[in-house]
């Protein structure tokens, strides 16, 4: 399933879409950046409430397929600019990380 497909399926807000055709290969959720870097696998969708600029560096270096910000986590212009510069897909929802995990689990395992 691609990033564009999950945007539609989960009704996600698009903050920045660099590559909608990127395949989602599994899911990881977590807010501690070093922990995420140690555990997130290549192509995972990363679900988090963490919203600072370092999130973009982590997603870039760990090669997440997209970031899904939950709980409508506020995001600054500097973070969006960094996402644009680094080509990171960044999406947002009002739902909790748990709700999004459950929904993604259903559609990815269907």
């Amino acid at each position, binding site marked *: 399933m691609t990033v564009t497909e999950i945007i539609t399926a989960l009704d996600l807000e698009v903050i920045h879409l660099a590559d909608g055709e990127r395949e989602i290969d599994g899911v990881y959720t977590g*807010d*501690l*950046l*070093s*922990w995420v*870097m*140690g555990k997130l696998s*290549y192509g995972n969708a990363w679900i988090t409430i*963490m919203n*600072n*600029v*370092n*999130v973009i*560096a*982590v997603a*870039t*270096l*760990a*090669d997440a397929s997209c970031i899904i910000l939950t709980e409508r986590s506020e995001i600054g212009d*500097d973070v969006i600019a*960094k996402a644009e510069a*680094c080509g990171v897909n960044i999406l947002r929802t009002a739902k909790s990380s748990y709700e999004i995990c459950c929904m993604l689990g259903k559609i990815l395992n269907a």
Partner: protein
Amino acid sequence: MADVLKLHFDVDGDDFTSAGEASADVKKRLRLMGYDPEIIRRVSIAMYEGEINMVIHAGGGVADVSVYPDKIEIVLEDKGPGIPDIALAMSEGFSTAPDTVRSLGFGAGMGLPNMKRYTDELHIDSKVGEGTKVTMIVNT
């Protein structure tokens, strides 16, 4: 064994927002050189953790990356306070990062463990009061 590529970076000690730029640059170059994505990921993450450590604990430092035909070597050097107990610092979850750093999502005590996890070799030379030199090797 001839060097293919040598890169040098100054890591700014005051700026969390620019931390990761050196790793991102290395990642971009390795991708252009056609390396396997997982090798690139391992090098990038290990180097980023090292950069962040230098920003958090040492007021910055320098990073040197050498790309050899069979391995990639990353050397990080700082003139920070040094690590009094390297074995303790290597334990997952152990951190001396201040709360300000934790609020950014760092300081989970996973930096050095991640550097070990993602590299084939990790050597740490540290002297309290003088600084730390970290050498990491990823075989390609």
